[in-house]
């Protein structure tokens, strides 16, 4: 069955088709929402909200863009809107947790774990810009539109976020990967 057929059946309220879309795209949706939210519980709520919005809006999907792109955009906007509403959330200044409970799909688990935990330590604005630019590949113009800021502000937040990440990751480096003149190079 093609994706277009699955989408049409999901549009008609076919639970099996909706499940098929979920199975295919839920890791993508959860990843971007998790990184924007910086919190597992919030991420689950936001991801569910994104799916509800997407399934509700499915009749408006005309196939002009790829379904994954359309869904991804809904997930990002849904998470950003939810975060704006939940602005009472306290900043995370607590020590890094022992482990990230969510499971990566593939890759270098240790490195990814360190990166994810460092991102969780960033202030919300920095984390959102870093996620959208360096992880998701958005342009500063797209980020500015999504966050309601200028492209210049997005750039500024990105550079601060990268620097903060560098600072957060520096203490975790192994001595054998120190760089020139004693400066620790962040080896991969």
């Amino acid at each position, binding site marked *: 069955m093609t994706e277009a057929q699955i989408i*049409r059946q999901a549009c008609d309220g076919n639970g099996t088709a909706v499940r098929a879309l979920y199975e295919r795209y*839920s890791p993508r949706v959860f*990843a971007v929402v998790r990184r924007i939210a910086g919190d597992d519980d919030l991420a689950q709520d936001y991801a569910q909200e994104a799916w509800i*919005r997407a399934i509700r809006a499915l009749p408006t999907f005309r196939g002009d863009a790829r379904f994954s792109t359309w869904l991804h955009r809904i997930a990002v906007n849904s998470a950003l809107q939810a975060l704006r509403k939940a602005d009472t959330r306290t900043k995370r200044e607590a020590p890094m947790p022992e482990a990230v409970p*969510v499971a990566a799909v593939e890759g270098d688990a240790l490195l990814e774990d360190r990166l994810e935990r460092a991102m969780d330590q960033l202030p919300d604005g920095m984390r959102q810009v870093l996620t959208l630019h360096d992880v998701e590949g958005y342009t500063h113009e797209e980020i500015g539109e999504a966050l309601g800021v200028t492209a210049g502000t997005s750039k500024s937040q990105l550079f601060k976020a990268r*620097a903060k990440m560098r600072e957060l990751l520096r203490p975790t480096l192994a001595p054998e990967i120190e760089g020139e*003149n004693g400066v620790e190079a962040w080896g991969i």
Partner: protein
Amino acid sequence: MGHLSTESLARIVSDAARPEEREHLDSCPSCRAELRALREQTEALGALPDLRPPTGDWEALEARLVSEGLVRTHGHAFRRFGLRSFGWLQAAAALILFVGGTALGTAWTRHGPGGGLGQMGPPSGLELVPVGGSIQPVSSLAEAADVVNLAERQYIDALVQYRQLLDAQGEPSLIGDPTARFAALEGIVAAGRAAVQQAPADPFVNGVLVSALAEREAILRNASLTRGDGVF
């Protein structure tokens, strides 16, 4: 010139270095190492994998989808705001019953001795022919209401089966265009308004109009929400 700040180096990761920064980088191994580390960090972020949702996520989502009427269960529930929502089908079924009832009432008015709907039993000169011959005679309003409800459910079930067969055979959606559906609902609303003017106190007629208005509003709201999401 002193060492470049980490923030400046973070900028040089994606933007060109200024001349004085380039000059410094050419002569400073420490800053070059720091810039390399920042570039590796950025590349690693871009290569982060997707994340599996926690266990039980689908079950929670499914429960919500069902509760919001976005997926059907046992073939009877429909998308709330979808093209074949239960509410829309109810409105469609009600409209059919309304049209049939109006024709019946008109016939009674023309041919019946009392000329009113309050008259019990078929008026003289009008022969009621049960559709398909399957409707049993009734002797009370309560029984008549049950028969109407049963017919409505059978109609909806038949429509569900029709849609499922269409899907199974890969037929294109007949009412898959929200714009066309909105226009169709506009027609129902217009007919419902005219009917309400003729029978303003009739709960059934009002029900048809309210259902159509609610469904039309749902389409508008849904379109508005998705526009707000930047979907369009």
